[in-house]
């Protein structure tokens, strides 16, 4: 706020306006492979909005297996890479860069360490933090996971202030995981973690469950021969839904600005 009067750039509002028109979330029709609209509604994202008013949007992704390969045909087909591509198209001429720090089997504690190292270096406008699957599968303490998230986001805020938005991403929907881990508890605690740290939650679980229930995309029931192609499609659809979510947050970020 204090920077505004000191360094006023007359072209900025114009660019912001043009940008805002360009990245208006598309609501009509079969958006994001038919993901439920309410799952793509976000809270204001001031950091993303500010970035889109300039020239580049830097996104930092941390998470476990799905950020790396997750059964797709290769790294280029994973949701973080697809998100970079989908979002890049939507917000051009703003350039979108996605840095992915994911590894199979990593927990929130590992992710927090990465955020502490890379946060100040990459100065992201948006952190997308996928967690909860490994914790749920191993039955790790939910309270500790929540505490880790709160501390990591607070640390990030101390360095970046409101210039970085944080989005948590919950596990992928899977009947197998649902039956054999207490996923509901972990999802509830992710909601609490997000609310307690000023972050928000993108519910991949709810979106994927919707796709399974409406028989649009069901990886667990797919024949082995189609699995890779279907995983590619799943990640692409998730990236599209996430792009909608982020653009919705950016829109609201604009409105929320004084």
């Amino acid at each position, binding site marked *: 706020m204090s920077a505004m009067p000191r360094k006023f750039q007359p072209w900025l509002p114009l660019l912001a306006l043009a940008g805002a028109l360009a990245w208006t979330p598309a609501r009509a029709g079969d958006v994001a492979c038919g993901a439920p609209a309410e799952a793509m*509604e976000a809270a204001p994202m001031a950091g993303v909005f500010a970035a889109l008013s300039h020239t580049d949007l830097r996104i930092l992704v941390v998470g476990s*297996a*799905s950020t790396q390969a997750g059964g797709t045909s290769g790294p280029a087909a994973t949701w973080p890479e697809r998100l970079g591509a989908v979002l890049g198209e939507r917000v051009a001429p703003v350039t979108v860069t996605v840095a992915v720090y994911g590894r199979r089997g990593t927990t929130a504690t590992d992710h927090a360490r990465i955020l502490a190292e890379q946060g100040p270096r990459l100065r992201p406008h948006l952190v997308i933090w996928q967690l909860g699957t490994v914790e749920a599968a191993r039955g790790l303490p*939910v309270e500790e996971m929540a505490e880790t998230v709160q501390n990591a986001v607070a640390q990030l805020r101390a360095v970046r202030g409101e210039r970085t938005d944080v989005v948590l991403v919950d596990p992928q929907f899977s009947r*197998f995981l649902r039956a*054999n881990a*207490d996923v509901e508890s972990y999802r509830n605690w992710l909601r609490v973690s997000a*609310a307690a740290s000023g972050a928000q939650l993108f519910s991949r679980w709810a979106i994927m469950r919707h796709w399974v229930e409406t028989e649009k995309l069901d990886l667990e029931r*797919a024949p082995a021969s189609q699995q890779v192609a279907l995983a590619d499609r799943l990640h692409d659809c998730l990236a599209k839904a996430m792009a909608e979510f982020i653009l919705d947050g950016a829109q609201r970020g604009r409105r929320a600005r004084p």
Partner: protein
Amino acid sequence: MSSPSASASAAASRDIRVDFLRGLALWFIFITHTPGNLLAHGTLRNVAFCDATEVFVLLAGYAAGIAYGRMLERDGWPTAAGRIVGRMGTLYVAHIFLFVVFAAQVGFSAAALNQAAYLDELHLDPFGQEPYRALLEALLLHYQPAFLDILPLYIVVLGLFALSLPLIRHPAWLLGLSATLYVAIRISGFNLPNWTGGSWFFNPFAWQLVFTIGVVLGRADPAVLARRLPWHRGLAVLAGLLLLACAVALNLVWHGPGFGLYAPEWLAAAIATVDKAGLHPARLASVLLLGWLVAHLIPRQASWLSHPVPAMFVLMGQQGLAVFCAGIFLSFLGRLALEMIPGLTGQVLVNLVGLAALIAVAVVSAWYGGEGKRSRKTPLPATSGIVTP
């Protein structure tokens, strides 16, 4: 505090409200142990800090206080403690049986579903990776898969109860000691380790407090109890409002964002401190407040409790262990059914068959002389029968 005559009169008029609530808790445990069951959205955990586990442990303590308290007076500490150890053995065997069923169910699901497709994360299935080791760890209660954590808690809590049994003649001492252990555990954070990382899902040294409170309540003369914890309309309204505020706060944090409502950060941060493993004081307070309200709002001789539907829950509550184990066993089958049969059909089927089977187990168990039947025939030398934990 409770003279022999007092406990005899308590035995004569068994408080079926306790059985009813226990039956309800057992039903909730079956529902919440069947992930994907839509009825789970209607259980206690959605509106309160505590859930069916606290109710179950509190009422298990209540029943144990009555049954073993009487045994202690009649046969002395060694015999009563021996019976408790025997009970622990039964629970242990039941737990291992359920573990085997669990392993079979996981194996079946893994084969039926393309779980490898996304669960590349591995470590998901320790049993599949290191079956011999997993079996050993399970026998040592060092490996507790999700949803198989209540019986290990119960076993350790009963062990502590066997040790402290003579103290039930001095409820203040018993409560004081139990609360001291609870506070020490809350401060130190000590818990038993779990093989897959972290520690026991329910810390038995913290959870023993809710069991002990149950024991003391079960031992107390109802008339004395009513005098000590009298009804007070103002307090009741306050308690009701407090519970309502908790329900609103929890649901605002969980589901508010879906409706564009955001809870203040401090509120969510406060909720984030309420841990389940160590029985956070808010969870304990929540179940005790609920208990106090229910005890006063449902009259002891409420006629509706003898109507057929509530009576089924009373019966389930009286056959506690059999119904609990059946519930966990059925929840494994329920998971498979929900995997196989999508949509409403699966939901209706799982819940109808599940509840019917729980009732059937209670009926059969009561009929062949499980828990409670013997005691009706032989009122005074009440063996483990009357109310078995």
